[in-house]
């Protein structure tokens, strides 16, 4: 056999602090922040004008971006209104389980100290990219606004 010394792949960089190096600290901090954000969004409504900034893409171009309506979706999720959440930004609603799943996988890696062993197949990543781009275009088509635009309202640049 050839003498290939199999070195370990570079492990994830850890913070120098021994407290932070404990695996569960960072996931717990992220979970706390997420709960905090959801609580705030659930109480301070993005439906009311002036509470949050307008999406820069919408403000500048008058076109919905794939994220327009995301804050209102989170507000509705926080208040357990899944129908309302879907009506504002279905992509965000679908992304939430994915984000939770990625958080679980990350937490498991941190706690067990085991490195990443799996990457999603490329087709899944291309599908994700395609869905984002197609969603972006279609939600600006006035005929499809009732299903894909935030609140079913046609984008301003297209006569909304």
């Amino acid at each position: 056999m050839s003498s290939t010394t199999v070195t370990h792949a570079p492990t994830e960089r850890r913070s120098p602090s021994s407290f932070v190096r404990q695996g569960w600290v960072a996931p717990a901090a992220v979970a706390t922040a997420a709960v905090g954000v959801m609580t705030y969004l659930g109480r301070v409504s993005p439906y009311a004008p002036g509470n949050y900034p307008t999406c820069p893409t919408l403000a500048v171009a008058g076109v919905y971006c794939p994220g327009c309506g995301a804050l209102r979706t989170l507000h509705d999720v926080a208040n357990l209104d899944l129908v309302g959440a879907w009506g504002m930004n279905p992509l965000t609603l679908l992304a939430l389980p994915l984000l939770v799943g990625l958080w679980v996988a990350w937490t498991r890696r941190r706690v067990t100290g085991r490195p990443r062993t799996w990457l999603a197949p490329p087709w899944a990543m291309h599908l994700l990219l395609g869905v984002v781009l197609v969603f972006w275009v279609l939600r600006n088509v006035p005929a499809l606004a009732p299903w894909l635009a935030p609140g079913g309202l046609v984008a301003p640049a297209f006569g909304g």
Partner: protein
Amino acid sequence: MSTPTDPQDPYNTQPPSSGGYGAPPPPPPVQYGAQGGAAGAPPNNYLVWAILSTLFCCLPLGVASIVSSTQVNSKWAMGDYAGAQDSSEKAKKFALWGAIAGAVVIVLYLVLVVGLGVFGSTLETTY
């Protein structure tokens, strides 16, 4: 005389496949030095950051992030481990810029709207 028997190898440079030559075939070239072959953990594709920038911050950065994330997975699947590592670094950069841009947007909003009252009554919708 010694006539070459193999038309593909007129100068007999290849050792016979079954025969007394003692030299073993050279080891396959190690092409992806840093990773030492197929071993090692897949690199981070920073997909979470890509999704967060796309949905909550800055569309161009978000799409660029997703493209970089996709390249990480594609190159890794093709066996291009060094390329996957490069794309991972790129995805990390986009993630960082997305986070910075998000923070800038929030701070600008707080300063302009909350602090100075600019656009006070003109904001009718929020996103």
